[in-house]
């Protein structure tokens, strides 16, 4: 688009050509990128990049159940918990577990569990819709992490590092693969927990990776997604044409500035950034707007029903973003930290996500998106097989504490083997005993599913090459399709 405020002679292209040298050609490359999405990777860090090797998954939807869903109440059936309910803990709680009360008692699952599907995965009847999907999911039952507190466990899951500030997984993946839509951010985070001890913008931050790879946030966990907006994305007071008019003058003045004061890569960057902002401003509101979906689709996700409306909307939004080519989408559901009243509260949490997640899987499949979308459902750790009575002695108030030694998660879609149950825990779901998968291994596997070698996806910063998996990580080959 030619701005009416351009110098009359020549045009933008001609002006840039006359500059000559590396700078002018860089700018020209940027112009070409506007015309041809795949061109000029050097100029456009969001342009799609080929993976290291061919792979099925092209994008990720991470359904992030922050707080730590209870494995033995939802998926990891342990008859001995029922048989020995109320008895003292039969295994040693080691020194690192001093936080546990010595008087803790074994506690059975809150609800009935049944084997589901051909694969025979045990599942609680509080997840009826997901239960019907058991054969489409790939189960990891012996996940393990390094921290028993939220802050650490969330950080290592989101960034690969317990104690250091490192780029988030979404930033790494967007850096590795670019994005398929140049009018949208490549990494979107829906309703993250932002504040308090367990929330931080660092969980979706680019840190030292180029800042184009940082997660763009929609809302936060305390605001209903219906009321959430991406910051500064739109100016409701002006029609697009008038906004474009403003932008034309801004860009014309930026170019005048360069013409006057000489070459400057930063001002080139500013000009590009303004263009991308404007395109986002025009495109993004539509993508986030679920009101154009059919009633049937809304119903599928549980939109409009009290318990499922909020998470249903988030999942539906995630599908729209996936469809639009966003590389990494994280959807957060907080409140899985069931220290007390687990009988009541876990049911509530489960109900809130059961239909929406099942609906998302059905919808992705129906649209042919599930094949190349990797859906991941997990929290940051599991919970203890014994109770933690915080407020009262009544069983109704009992809950469970954090357990980094094992938890259950599942993946679906792009490149994972459906109906696989991988990993075993001991008789109490206290520790993994077979096929344990550490968070680093999960990261290596996710990157592998996207066609990225976790040892080769590096970024040189401050004199050394960094990786999402640091010096760890083994791809879990057994679950690959």
């Amino acid at each position, binding site marked *: 688009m030619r701005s009416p405020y351009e110098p009359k002679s020549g045009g933008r292209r001609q002006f840039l050509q006359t500059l000559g040298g590396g700078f002018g050609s860089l700018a020209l490359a940027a112009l070409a990128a506007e015309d041809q999405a795949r061109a000029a990777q050097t100029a456009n860090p969001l342009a799609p990049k080929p993976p290291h090797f061919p792979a099925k998954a092209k994008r990720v939807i991470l359904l992030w159940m922050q707080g730590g869903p209870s494995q033995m109440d939802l998926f990891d059936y342990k008859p001995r918990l029922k048989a020995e309910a109320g008895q003292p803990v039969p295994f040693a709680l080691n020194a690192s577990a001093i936080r546990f009360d010595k008087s803790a008692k074994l506690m059975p699952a809150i609800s009935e569990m049944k084997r589901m599907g051909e694969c025979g995965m045990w599942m609680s009847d509080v997840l009826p819709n997901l239960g019907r999907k058991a054969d489409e999911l790939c189960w990891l039952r012996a996940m393990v992490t390094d*921290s028993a507190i939220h802050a650490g466990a969330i950080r290592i899951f989101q960034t690969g590092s317990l104690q250091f500030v490192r780029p988030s997984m979404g930033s790494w993946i967007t850096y590795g693969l670019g994005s398929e839509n140049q009018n949208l951010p490549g990494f979107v985070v829906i309703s993250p927990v932002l504040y308090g001890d367990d929330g931080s913008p660092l969980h979706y931050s680019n840190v030292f990776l180029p800042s184009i790879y940082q997660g763009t946030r929609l809302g936060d966990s305390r605001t209903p997604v219906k009321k959430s907006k991406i910051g500064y994305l739109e100016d409701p007071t002006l029609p697009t044409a008038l906004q474009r008019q403003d932008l034309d003058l801004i860009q014309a003045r930026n170019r005048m500035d360069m013409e006057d*004061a000489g070459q400057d890569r930063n001002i080139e960057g500013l000009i590009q950034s303004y263009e991308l902002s404007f395109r986002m401003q025009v495109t993004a509101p539509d993508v986030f707007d679920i009101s154009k979906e059919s009633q049937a689709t809304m119903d599928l996700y549980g939109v409009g029903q009290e318990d499922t409306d909020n998470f249903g909307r988030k999942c539906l939004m995630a599908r729209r973003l996936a469809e639009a080519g966003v590389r990494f989408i994280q959807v957060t559901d907080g409140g899985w930290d069931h220290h007390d009243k687990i009988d009541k509260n876990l049911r509530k949490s489960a109900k809130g996500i059961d239909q929406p997640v099942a609906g998302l899987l059905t919808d992705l499949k129906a649209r042919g998106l599930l094949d190349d979308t990797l859906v991941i459902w997990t929290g940051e750790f599991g919970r203890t097989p014994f109770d933690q009575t915080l407020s009262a002695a009544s069983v109704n108030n009992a809950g469970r504490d954090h357990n980094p030694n094992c938890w259950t998660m599942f993946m679906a879609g792009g490149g994972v083997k459906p109906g696989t149950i991988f990993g075993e825990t001991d008789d109490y779901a206290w520790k993994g005993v077979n096929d344990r998968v550490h968070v680093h291994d999960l990261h290596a596997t996710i990157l592998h599913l996207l066609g990225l070698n976790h040892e080769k996806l590096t970024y040189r910063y401050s004199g050394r*090459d960094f990786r999402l998996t640091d010096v760890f990580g083994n791809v879990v080959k057994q679950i690959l399709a």
Partner: protein
Amino acid sequence: MGASPTLFESGCVYGNLSPRACGSDLRTGTIRQDIGPSFGHVRSCKNWTQDIKQKLMLVTGSLFPSGAVAARLGFLFATLACGLPGQTVDRGAFFESKIRPLLVTRCGSCHGDQVQMGGKQLTSKDGMHRAGVVVAGDANASPLVEAVRYTGKVKMPPTGKLSDEEIQLLEKWISDGAFWPETDPQAKTISAVGHWAFQPVKSPAAPAIKDTAWAYSDIDRFILAKLEEKGIKPAGDANKYTLLRRASLDLTGLLPTRAEIDAFVNDSSPEAFAHVVDRLLASPAYGDRWGRHWLDITYYADTTGYGRRIPLPEAWRYRDYVIESFNDDKPYDQFVKEQLAGPQDEPGKKKKEKKDLSAIAATGFLVLGPWSWGSYDRAQTLLDAADLQVDMVGRTFLGLTLGCARCHDHKFDPIPNKEYYGLIGVFLSTKTLAMNNFGDGGVNMVPLPVNTEIAKRYAEEMEQYDRRVAEAEVAEKGYAKEREEVEKRITELKAKAKSAENDAELKAAEEQLTALKAKSEYAADKQILEFVKYKKPRLPYVYAAEDLDMPQDTRIARRGDAHQLGEFAPRGFLTAVNYGKPPEIEPTSSGRKELAEWIANEKNPLTARVYVNRLWHHLFGDGIVGSTENFGARGDAPTHPELLDHLASRLVANGWSTKKTIREIVLSHVYQLASTATPGSLELDPDNKLLAHANRRRMEVETIRDTILQVAGNLDPGRGGPSLPLTEQNMHTIAPFFLEDDTVIEDPIKNRRTVYQPVMRNSQMAPIDILNLFDFKDPDQVVGTRIPTVVPTQTLYLLNAPFVKDEAALLARRLLSDKTLDDGARVSALMIDALNRPATPRDVAQAAEFIAKTKDGIITAKLPTSDATQDAWARYCHVILVSSEFLYRR
């Protein structure tokens, strides 16, 4: 496993670990309260050490099966051949001419006489023998060769591979039997060899230059000599408008006023610019800007660092101390000493007489940080805080990444693990955390002296406080009592027989109950009583460090784990920074006082260099040493080493005066150049490292915000004092007390300069959200160099944020309210105010076209507007405020 690290442990799986790749970004000790020794990085170190040891065992075992291998501490040593008679002459000459110089120059700074990293010394026969890295006669089996070839996991030297020729020399030497003569003629010369930054500061003579007329001062001679060497011609001079704008932004962070522009442009005297510089340096705004630069290399924030925003309502005292120190041009050595050790004794004055308020706040430098007293593991919390303090002291004053030596000897700089713990001992002997949960987040508080005026005010405040508590109690309890009565009445009424009268009375009572419930719930919800109690008046306090009663040495914490203690490390300083006998630590002192003397010493080779480099960095956009916090082996080499020394010696000669040093730099010719590169110069020097022209750079976020407010006529000149908005709405007042996430800045502060806004550790408050987007400094890190990013979230902010729109509207209103101006004159006024230059005809024409079109657009689109002209002008002002010419400094 032996207690002390070995050569192989002191290598790293990455071979070339970055400055503080492992610990720098340790956010806070409290985060790792549960992880104990499972440092990922260390685990990996250990694994490959095992590998190498096995390899070594195989190799040495096969070569020296008959006991030439010595085993000690479970560790195997290779041996050195002594050389056979008859070969001595040739081998000796070869060794002295080729090998010894190579070992001394390429290995000696870390494995030499002075420093033996990993306990290895490679510059003496005995040392080489004990190091066990050479298998005489078999180069391929020698760990030394593997290390220099960079084929194994240990890569030495870490600063860069040796040349092929050098590697071949070492291989040949070892293959020939690794001969080492009995006498070491050069053994004592090693200490002179080493990294540049540890050498004494010289006062070099300015070099000869061809174009002598170009140079205004020696600074220019150093600059021009390099340019002439490269055949680059410097750019022409910046015009007066540009120069004034540049100097005003650099020195004060604000734009020049119309009057200032007029005065400078019309002053044709040779001292015109010097007058400007003196005016700017004398303005309080200078301290606002340069104080903020200093705060960037501290952990200053107005909250503690533990998830929740626990307010530190006195933190502003340290901020103000820093700002006023710059405005007072406090000598830098004194500034350093005060921040480490508190108020300094003035000669002839007794300690008690001179405790002035501002210098007591100085050790806020040490006590404000990403920590708080809320952890499960107290020993670890204290150690982690001390680590962050040592690391900050290293980066901020010395340009050294000391924190790298927390778990092992520093990989690249001659800083042994034991010396690191010598410094940790200093800070563990210092009280910065109060070690209890009372007070403000457990940060150590020291009372300020109380005079009668303060005592009187305190008494009055206490009186008011008691009254407020009583009121709040009435509100909370009163409602409850009333409620009880009404509830009782309702029960009675319900029990009575039904009648119209009763029903009406019941209904009225129920309504009353609802109202009461609402009122009492409101009181409880808002925690009014708790808030009143939280705000209990107290005598003035300051966050400051104090020596513990029993200062003592600490023990090495293996892998930084406070529960795995090794040998004692005597408190002391760095042997690598060797400029004379270091001060002895008095038995009653933590060692801070002595550390401060040792750092703020004109002979310390790092202190002055690091500081003048920071000043240069802020004025030119790049330091002479690009890595402003790392002057070690992995840092950048200085582009102009002699200039750096010149500036450092000038700083000392000027009595450590910051203002004088800045003045000398700003009055140089090189500072006053235009930003347009001369033809061809960018091909020869693409990054403009030689400064042939001025660097253009985006203004810091504080300056963007401050100048937008300034141009809109909306900048509040208020300075100093508390800024945390501790209001009922903002505070969570049930312990632990913290600021709510949607905290709003109070009106009296809101339009002050950004440096006076509260600084949070997690993310900045909504009204100053711009700080979250434009690369504001992370308060938990020492950041001497902010890296400006350009991303769409920033440009979206510039296009749509209410802050920019509101200020643009104010600006438009101001321009339009002057009825003496026509539209052309309005554009001129805007250009002068915002861009500090006269309007061009193009500006005027462009503005007219845009405003007319926008006005039409607003009317055509039937946008709600009370004044389309005002709105169109606001859009135009907005465009000017978000275009590159405004956002970038030339």
